[in-house]
């Protein structure tokens, strides 16, 4: 076996054993709830059996033996006809934990070219891996949120005399808190491979169902993102893959006729861009038919007949609820392309979607994921007494605002910024604020997203904070740009507004 090939098998083993063991944990819980049920026992048996086979193939003898012994034990109890004892189930759970640790240790310790060290590595590494319930981690994260808020209050007091011992102590604490925050967030990270591994078989299976040929390539799956993001990423990603295979790729005959290779190429790439991870999903199919989309939009009265449609405009149309370009309904994608669902799912994750499509050459979707879910650097702005928090990601600049700078163009308010007219939005109108009149001098925040700019008027800006974002129960009709809530250093709650989606 070559080193490269072995490395691939080790990666497959790591990913597949992780998935199987996650399923096993659910099966163990189900079996504990219903000890008379056979299905969980069968699933656990298959898991052990598969792990044993994989481990034996990689000569991870400790894992194989552990799995084999547990399997033998399991079969004896499953087929023994005796009721399953709770204590035995706890032992079984412990055995699975042991196997999980041994799998991780073997795969991690497998220095493909340094196989000689392998024998010692697993034992020492196994002792250093701890499995943590995500809930406990979330509790830790909540405590951290409280600390960050307390720190900001302390810093506010310390500002009065920056040379005082209290201020110096506050600075020291702030530095340590930054480190702690980084470490806790790091613990929550999981590799994209957990989702990416599933992509090639799904795509190949779809292609077979649809009579298409396809090659799949995956790059960058070693990048890590927040566990909560990863868990919810699979669904929109698979949705886009379905679209790519079903609507994007032509049939092999059509492709041959066009001089393309009969097998369509689907690529999924991940790369890091500053604070975020960007995924690119591309196909080399027919591209989205811009004219068909435009014609449909014009027919529905949502686009001017003489409008030109760039990629952003195209995506905005395709993401409208119920809007679809599929000319034939297929088994795979159901009715339409359902991009609206994808977009709203991604927004819930704090992710955004971009589109590039070229006729005859193919389509690429870009998904920008937040790597650090939970704490965002944000600006605090206010309307009357109400405070709102806005992530700094898309804030380009902020300007002191003179009321006479605003002009009306085609019934819309614009201001001139270095020779360019940009539209103005008033936070008061956006939030339907009906309190006292605004102050005469108000600041404007310039947001920039997708190459467009918008100036947002607030009553006042109160500086930057590290906002610890809490998810929000969203009653029906909550605008999608209200993305969460946070607690300010005065102890009062504030809504988090992500105005990039308004831009």
């Amino acid at each position, binding site marked *: 076996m070559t080193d490269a090939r072995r490395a691939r*098998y080790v990666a497959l083993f790591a990913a*597949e054993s992780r998935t199987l063991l996650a399923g096993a944990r659910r099966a163990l819980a189900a079996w504990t709830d219903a000890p008379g049920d056979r299905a969980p026992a069968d699933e656990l048996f*298959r898991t052990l*059996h*598969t792990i044993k086979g*994989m481990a*034996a*193939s990689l*000569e991870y003898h400790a894992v194989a033996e552990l799995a084999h012994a547990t399997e033998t034990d399991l079969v004896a109890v499953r087929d023994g006809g005796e009721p399953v004892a709770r204590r035995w189930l706890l032992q079984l759970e412990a055995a699975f934990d042991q196997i999980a640790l041994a799998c991780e240790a073997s795969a991690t310790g497998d220095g493909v070219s340094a196989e000689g060290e392998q024998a010692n590595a697993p034992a020492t590494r196994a002792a250093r891996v701890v499995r943590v319930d995500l809930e406990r981690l979330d509790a830790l994260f909540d405590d951290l949120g409280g600390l960050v808020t307390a720190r900001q209050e302390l810093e506010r007091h310390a500002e009065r005399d920056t040379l005082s011992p209290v201020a110096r102590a506050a600075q020291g604490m702030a530095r340590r808190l930054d480190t702690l925050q980084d470490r806790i967030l790091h613990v929550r990270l999981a590799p994209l491979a957990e989702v990416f591994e599933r992509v090639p078989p799904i795509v190949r299976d779809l292609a077979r169902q649809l009579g298409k040929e396809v090659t799949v390539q995956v790059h960058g799956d070693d990048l890590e993102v927040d566990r909560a993001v990863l868990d919810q990423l699979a669904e929109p990603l698979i949705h886009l893959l379905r679209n790519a295979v079903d609507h994007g790729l032509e049939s092999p005959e059509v492709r041959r006729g066009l001089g393309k290779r009969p097998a369509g190429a689907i690529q999924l790439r991940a790369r890091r861009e500053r604070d975020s991870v960007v995924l690119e999903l591309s196909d080399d199919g027919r591209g989205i038919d811009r004219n068909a989309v435009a014609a449909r939009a014009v027919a529905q009265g949502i686009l001017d007949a003489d409008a030109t449609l760039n990629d952003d405009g195209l995506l905005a149309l395709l993401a409208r609820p119920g809007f679809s370009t599929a000319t034939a309904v297929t088994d795979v994608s159901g009715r339409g392309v359902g991009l609206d669902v994808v977009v709203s799912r991604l927004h819930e994750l704090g992710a955004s979607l971009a589109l590039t499509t070229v006729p005859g050459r193919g389509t690429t979707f870009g998904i920008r994921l937040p790597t650090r879910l939970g704490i965002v650097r944000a600006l605090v702005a206010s309307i009357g007494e109400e405070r709102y928090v806005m992530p700094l990601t898309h804030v380009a600049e902020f300007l002191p605002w003179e009321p006479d700078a605003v002009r009306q163009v085609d019934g819309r308010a614009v201001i001139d910024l270095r020779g360019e007219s940009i539209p103005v939005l008033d936070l008061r109108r956006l939030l339907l604020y009906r309190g006292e009149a605004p102050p005469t001098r108000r600041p404007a925040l310039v947001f920039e997203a997708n190459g467009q700019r918008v100036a947002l008027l607030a009553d006042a800006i109160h500086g930057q904070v590290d906002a610890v974002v809490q998810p929000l129960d969203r009653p029906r009709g909550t605008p999608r740009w209200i993305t969460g809530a946070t607690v300010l250093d005065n102890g009062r709650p504030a809504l988090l507004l992500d105005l990039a989606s308004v831009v």
Partner: protein
Amino acid sequence: MAQRVLICDDAIFMRTMIADILTGAGYEVVGEAESGLQAVERYKSLLPDIVTMDIVMPDMGGIDAVKAIIATHPDAKILMCSAMGQQALVVEAIQAGARDFVVKPFQPARVLEAVQRVLAG
């Protein structure tokens, strides 16, 4: 023309390993199945020259899949893939119509020998 293979195993790992062994020797992997039910379906739609069949799979196990395939295609050439200690099941699979078996962990030479034997027989 290359002989066409259908690989049935619930583990991507095993399917990849078998596919590597076989494609390296010039076989064409025309399909993969991850459960017994899928194996039966795929067999009917792909009509491969040979099938590699795992024994332990969800939905429908490999032995039941062999029975279902042989019931409609008595000439199907099926090679069982078993783990150590599954001798009894291998015998059952052979009685159900499988032609031969290989034991995990796979040794490429053994797998290729068995595949050639089954295709020749």
